[in-house]
Structures are given as C-alpha cells and as structure tokens.
C-alpha cells in the first residue's frame, strides 16, 4: 500500500492553492455579498486547465486523473465554495456526460470549447416535481422526422443561466419501455436554441457566486443527432454522471472542512478569555481534535474512492459514502468553527460565516444525505428495493 501522493498531485495542490489564495480569496467575500458569478475568474480557472481535468489532451483536457481533480476542487473549496462549484459542475456534470457518452462528432464539437473555458456545459436533471426521484421527469422529447421537440421545465441547474453557458445536457422522457416504464434519454441542447429560456435563480443562501438557473423548454427543437449516446440510456447515464459528481461534491466538503479547521485553530490559539487562549480549555481542544480526526478520515475515504475510479473499479457505494461523509464532516467542522469564534463567527467579517452557509448545500445537491444512505443500503446487502 502506498499513501504518498505523486509529484503531479503535490504540484497540483501547490499550484491551485497559490492561485486560490492570490486570485480568489481577495474577492470571494464581495462576490458572495453581491451574489455575482464571475466570468473573468472562470476564464482564469480554465486557463489553468481546471476544466477538462479527466479529459485527454487531444480534446483540450489536462488528463490529470481523479485524485488530482479532487485535490484541485478541494483547494478551490478551501478558499471559495462558489468557484469550486463552478468547476465541479463544469467538469463532472457538464463535460463528463459528453466525454463519457458522446459520439466522436459530439466530443469534437464540444469538448475543446468546454475545456478551454470558452463556454460551460450544464446538466439539466432536476425538475420542480422530480428532485430526489429523478426518474419521474416530466420533460418530454418527441422525435418527429429528423428533429426532437422538447417541452418541460428544469430547476436548480448549475452553470445554466450565465453569460458563459454554452450547452445543456437535458434529461427527458422519449417514450415508454415495453414494461410501461418511461424511456429516458439525454439530449444535447445548445443554449441559444429557440424555445429554450434560461432564468437566473437569485437569493440563494449559499454558493452565491455560482450560477444557478431555471430552464423552460417550449417546443425547443434540436436535430436527431443531438441525442447523447443511445436512446433509452438516459437514466443509466444520469446515475453514472452522479457517481462522478459525488466525488467532486465530497472534495468540496473536504476543502471546506480544512478551511474551517485552519480558521478555528488559529482563532482558538489567539483568542484570550479567562487569561488563557480558549483553545487551552479541554472542551475546545477536543473540538479541534475531532475536526482533525474527521478530516483525516474524510480525505482517506475520498482519495481512495478516486483511486478506485482511476483504476476502473465500481464506485457507486464508495462515492455515495465519500459524498455523504465529507459533507457531514464539514457540517460538524463549520459548527465547531463558528462556536469557537463566539459572536464573531456570526459576522460576515469572519470567513467561518460564509463556510457555515456554503456547507448546507452539500447535504442536498447531487443526492440528499437520505438518498445517499439509500444508495449505500442497497449496496451492502440490505434487502428490499423500497428502503
């Protein structure tokens, strides 16, 4: 067994940390307050190669593997969850489906533009009436002649309503299977297609500098060739995409936990009450010890899962575990960090306040904690599909 990171993994951490601290940290609070997506920052991140992390160089990617990808997202999230969200969704949810399920022509058409950051791809799965129950999509696509006509409504779609949005992967019902179950497929829909309207969703509690959109499809027509992979494969494509996506959400939990720990440690060592640094009270030292312990476990679980992915092993159970654990570790870490900061932790002048809010999505997006426990239960031999 070898727990050492490789040279390129260490270099990746150094490079992304330096970038995040110098280029993102100084403006993160302002972007959060103004609820502003920054195309400029997204372009800078793309210039570093942060889009297309697992895509071969021939399509413009940096082909760095999943461990380096997780490290990169972790380092971004340590400084700003919103920028990490843009990159995590841009890769796992946007580029992922096209790279893994697209045909050669679709890859040639989209991947170089997506990897260079010229535009972003979004993954349109969630609907107002189909959240955790993603199989109950009501958006339809009907094939007439050489064209699909799409009608329906998607909500909470990351990177789907910003100036850089270039294409949406839309999950839609394209027919019925023999057993009566809906046939689900994914379609590639360029964002300027007539009949598609995108509306930015405002007033979020967290990820305020990440773009979230609501999409309306009203007789939106795309060529038959825009079908992603095979007709009827949509549900399977969605599950595989979420497996990958969960690694990046886990990385965000890990990076956020690390940030909360570092801030809490620094504060606990310098804040004097009752004539002593508050960290020297055992009750507080134990909080810091618990944070360090859980971060260590979270990191090991996530990197191991990325290693499994790089080695072509199944990861459904482990990815669900990593996402669930990292997001809940971050919940405990931000809770302790705010507590250790006392009243100051509730003020926007202190970074723990933003970390505390940004944690909340991690237990909801890409599979709520409940859904993830269902996924794990189904994969450990608990009987009964209806768990």
């Amino acid at each position: 067994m070898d727990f050492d990171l490789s040279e390129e993994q260490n270099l990746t951490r150094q490079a992304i940390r330096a970038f995040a601290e110098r280029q993102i940290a100084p403006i993160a609070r302002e972007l959060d307050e103004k609820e502003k997506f920054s195309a400029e920052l997204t372009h800078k991140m793309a210039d570093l190669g942060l889009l297309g992390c697992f895509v071969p160089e021939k399509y413009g990617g940096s082909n760095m593997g999943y461990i380096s990808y997780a490290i990169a997202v972790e380092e971004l999230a340590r400084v700003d969850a919103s920028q990490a969200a843009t990159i995590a969704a841009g890769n796992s949810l946007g580029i992922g489906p096209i790279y893994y399920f697209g045909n050669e022509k679709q890859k040639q058409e989209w991947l170089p533009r997506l990897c260079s950051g010229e535009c972003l791809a979004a993954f349109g799965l969630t609907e107002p009436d189909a959240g955790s129950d993603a199989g109950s999509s009501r958006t339809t696509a009907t094939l007439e002649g050489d064209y699909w006509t799409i009608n329906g409504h998607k909500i909470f779609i990351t990177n789907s309503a910003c100036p850089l949005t270039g294409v949406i992967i839309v999950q839609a019902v394209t027919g019925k299977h023999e057993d009566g179950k809906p046939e689900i497929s994914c379609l590639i829909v360029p964002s300027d297609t007539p009949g598609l309207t995108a509306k930015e969703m405002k007033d979020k509690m967290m990820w305020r500098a990440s773009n979230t959109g609501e999409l309306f499809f009203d007789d939106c027509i795309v060529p038959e060739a825009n079908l992603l992979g095979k007709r009827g494969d949509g549900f399977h494509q969605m599950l595989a995409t979420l497996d990958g996506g969960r690694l990046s959400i886990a990385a965000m939990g890990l990076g956020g936990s690390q940030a909360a720990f570092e801030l809490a440690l620094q504060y606990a060592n310098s804040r004097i009450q009752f004539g002593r640094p508050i960290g020297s009270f055992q009750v507080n030292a134990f909080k810091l010890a618990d944070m360090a312990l859980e971060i260590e476990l979270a990191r090991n679980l996530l990197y191991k899962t990325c290693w499994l992915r790089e080695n072509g092993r199944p990861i459904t159970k482990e990815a669900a575990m990593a996402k669930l654990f990292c997001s809940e570790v971050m919940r405990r870490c931000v809770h302790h960090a705010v507590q250790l900061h006392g009243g100051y932790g509730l003020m926007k002048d202190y970074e723990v306040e933003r970390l505390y809010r940004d944690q909340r999505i991690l237990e909801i997006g890409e599979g709520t904690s409940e859904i993830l426990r269902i996924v794990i239960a189904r994969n450990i031999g608990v009987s009964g599909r209806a768990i």
Partner: protein
Amino acid sequence: MPVNMIVCCKQVPDPEAPPAVFKVVNNKMTLPPEVKPVIGQYEEFALEAALKIKDTAGGKITALSLGNNFVRDVIKKALAVGADELVLLEDKAFEDGDSWSTANALAAAIKKIGAYNIIFCGRQSSDWDAGQVGLGIAEILGIPAVTLARKVEVSDGKAKVERVIPDGYQVVEVTLPVLIIVTSGIGALRYATLKGIMAAAKKQPAVWKPADIGLEPSKLGAAGRRSKLDKLFQPVKESKCEIIGGDTAAEAGAKLAARLREAKLL
C-alpha cells in the same frame, strides 16, 4: 530567433515561515520539518523573465539548481511553469558552500550544458541574501553581466535590458551571451497549469554529481569556500520602556526631546 536560456534557481526554506522557528545550533541554521522548501522568490522572477522571452521569441529553458535533498515536487515547479529541462547538482559535497564555491559549481555545470544565449539569476537568494552568485558565474565564464533587470527583450543577437536605478530605470544593450540578474520588477511568476504539471511529471531531472561537472570535491561546498563563516547568531532584541513625565504637556515634550538627543536619536 529561438533563445537558449539557463535559469539558476535555488530551493530555500519558505521565507513566509515565522522567524521564531529558525534556530541557530553550532553556527548552523536549523529548521523544524514543518517548514517546507520553496523555489526562492527572486529565482521565480528569473524564471518568469525567461518564460516571457520564450513566449515571444521561442527557445529553450534549462533550470539549474545546486543543493542537497531536493524535494522533487518543489523544484519540479520550474518544469511545471514551462522550463524544458531541469538539471540538479545534487550531492552532499555541494553543501555549505559560499558564493564562490556555488558560482564555481554552477559555472562548471553551465559549461557542460553547453549552448546558451542568456543565463538568468535572481538578484539574491531568499535565505542568505548574499547576492553574489550571478556575478561570480559571469566572471568565471568570462561573459558580460547586467544586474537589476526589470525587463528583457532579445533581437538580433542582442538583449535590451531595463535596469532599475534609484530614481528610475536605465536601458542598456548587450551582446549575447550574457548573464542577467533579475529583480522583482519583472513581475510575479505565472501559475503552473495542470497541463504543465502533467508534462512535468513525465520528465525526470538530470542529476549531476561533482564528477559529472569535472570538479574536485575540494573545490566544492564547504571545502571550496573562500570565505569563512565566523559566527552565526540571532540578535537578541531588548526593549525597555521609559516614561517621561512633566507637569505640563510642553514640559514633558521638552524633556522628551532632551532625552532623545541624549540617546542620539535626534
């Protein structure tokens, strides 16, 4: 014209580490393991100077470093940001040199690398701040040196260099080959891109021992020093507080002025 460049870069303890962790034991500086090494700040500027020329004129950059116990993923940053090759002079014999023995070894390595148009050095290393190695190399190689460069352009076998001077800058032109000592004005080193990191990971640095550059161990490191380190110590700073009073503010002020003059501070 593609330009062949060599950049001397040194691995130094992270200068951002708090001063209190640096300890002197038996005339030697010791560091706790949590202080990680980095490429020196001025050497990063030197790398950036070379990369800027590669951006415009094209060419090849060889990063050259002398030391012991290189941390590979620290020193390989030079490759990750865009240097083409990395040569490490890595041996116990290179340890504890002075500016002279270091310049001597680097110059021997540069001769071995061979074809070069420009050698870039930082203005001084972030650990010892001696600022002599660059000029030493130029002297040994018998080539011109330009110090304190903040901008370098190459054309027609010549380099045009903007040199920082106290009240502005000076433009000098120099024929190649030349050694250029770079200052912060050149701009911060670019970030490594992930593609650059992946490319760097595939490259292995050349590691040269004293024999590879044809130098006797007696000319190297501690044995090759021409200056002797007499005493290395951390100054003890004492602070004392003296309250100067007076019945009125004017009187206190006058007494304070007298006291400051007595202490030769006024």
